[in-house]
């Protein structure tokens, strides 16, 4: 442990696959984030997410035949002093400090200051957790006949979401209906009113470039 300085930040990458196929499960990159084999249609019970709110216990809002994937690449986490030197102390840019102080944000219901003395100098000297992505972006390459263009370099976050349909499903049938009572999250009696997807023209995951410094502090 003698060489540990305890002053370095950390880099974090994260991968999350929900009813979808991770890289080690597919033969080529274009299939990353595609649906698991048992996600085939609105009735696929293993590919559902259902919500129920208080006093709405007659049924469920069911996200049907859904899968998702998330990759976050190389998010840098470090400590900072908010108004400190941008290099030595990971502080914010000069432009960020040109905005007027809104001290109401740091006060309670009675108007008492909860954050030091609610002055700019107090905020400048306060510590924070900083998450950072370098400013980046990608490029677009036009396609050829039959092949839409492609994007490269949008790799900070890869996000894929697919939901074939959304509908409310009920626990009990009305008189005259033939379907059996069952928890609504299992049912598929009402089809869909809307579906949605987040993807790329060439893959199952949208590419997102994020830049900047994010500071979290509290009071």
């Amino acid at each position, binding site marked *: 442990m003698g060489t540990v300085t305890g002053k370095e930040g950390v880099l974090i990458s994260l991968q999350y696959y929900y009813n979808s196929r991770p890289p080690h499960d597919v033969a080529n990159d274009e299939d990353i984030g595609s649906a698991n084999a048992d996600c085939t249609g609105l009735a696929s019970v293993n590919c559902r997410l259902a919500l129920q709110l208080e006093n709405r216990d007659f049924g469920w809002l069911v996200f049907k035949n859904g899968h998702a994937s998330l990759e976050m690449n190389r998010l840098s986490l470090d400590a900072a002093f908010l108004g400190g030197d941008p290099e030595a102390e990971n502080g914010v840019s000069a432009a960020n400090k040109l905005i007027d102080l809104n001290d109401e944000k740091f006060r309670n219901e009675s108007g008492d200051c909860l954050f030091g003395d609610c002055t700019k100098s107090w905020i400048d000297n306060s510590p*924070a957790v900083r998450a950072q992505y370098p400013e980046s972006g990608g490029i677009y390459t036009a396609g050829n006949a039959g092949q839409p263009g492609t994007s490269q370099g949008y790799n900070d976050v890869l996000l894929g979401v697919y939901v074939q349909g959304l*509908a409310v499903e009920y626990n009990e049938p009305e008189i005259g209906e033939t379907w059996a009572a069952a928890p609504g999250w299992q049912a598929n009696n*009402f089809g869909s009113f809307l579906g949605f997807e987040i*993807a*790329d023209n060439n893959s199952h995951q949208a*590419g997102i470039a994020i830049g900047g410094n994010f*500071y979290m502090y509290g009071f």
Partner: protein
Amino acid sequence: MRRNNSLSHMLLGAALTLGASQAMALQELDDSSLSDVQGAGLAFAMDDFSFRFAPTSYIELTGTQAQGAGWERGDARYYGLSITNGEQIAGMDWHGSGCGSGGAFGNDHLACPMGTDNGGGIGAFASIYDPYVLRAYQYEGYDYSGAYLSTPANMPTVMELIGPSDTDRWRWSFWGELEVDRLNNNPADGALNNSYNVGGADFLQSQTIIHGKPVTTDGRPARLRLMRTTGMDSALYPWADSNTFGITYESALSGDFRFSVRQKANSEDRLHWVPDFEDNEGMYFKNVDAYLPLGQLHYQALTLDAVRSGSERGNFIIELTQIPNIAAVYEDFYCVGPCNIVNGEIQNPNNDTRGYVRWGDFTRFDDPGSTDGFAVPGAQSTDNGIYFVSGGTGAGTVIPDAVTNLGISRIEGMRINHMKITTLGAGL
């Protein structure tokens, strides 16, 4: 010596999670430095922020099979959602090219969908002095039953996210694609924009650019509040206890806007191909200022429900609940304190419940002697109001006199007493 007595519990948790060997520069943190932390709120500042979907990446809303004659299925894609620098004019389009930001037709910041200055980053997306704040808070107010709640014991707790009251200007943009009658299309064939080609897809591609701030001109921030509703009892609603998850949202936006569809002569005009949009053409809105309060603590909220019986079951309801029919609540909704009405006009209106949308700056319209703001626009003005710029007739060039300014327009005093949206696509 730095003060460290303002760290949140969250910060401590984050540091501990990272492990002792990776505790970064937190060596000055000790128990006593946390003694002043109240746990009352979390602040989020964002510096040099930018966010860019790839121009080929999209969010899509998919329709269902159309029911009945005269209806076609529609599927909408929103590509390249971007939030980038808007303080400087320099920018680029979806192909990564610079665009004609010469200020023609007042398009200084509206020619290019993405800003490139500062690497695209927005210096004060959320300043450390005016950050996003997430906190639990208690507000006085009438609940759904008309009871006035004002003590710590009975005031409902709301979780609220408050946006900044001032930011640098951003560019917020995307390009959109509306595909019609998908099931009968062959998307691989492509077709001309919004014109039918046998065997090909019917579609309309468009570009939307907003240049401004997520605050009103007079500095109202956007606010999102989440709560459990209070006082929705059987006297008001058909169910014995109807309290449920509630949302209020105050939408605030000010700035300029351009919506366009024309593409350059060499742009590939095909479904799912990234268009090269013309830099000037489109519908412009200059000096927009909009405030829209949805819900009021604690007697009106956005709630979620479903059609509970009958043939439209399966469908989802978003409802901005009706103002309870109680005199005290109505008075609170319309007035600050007891309503002072003279000749039928409220003298002390409650401006927190009054939404407005102003398409143009009205300063000199309201006060002709003023030198602030912008003049009431003429037929070809490009600095104020609503105007159209034509796409010309040649190879993408625009003739200089092709501006048509419609003037300025506004809606004031927009209060919503009740709004209910029900989907109808399920269960068909």
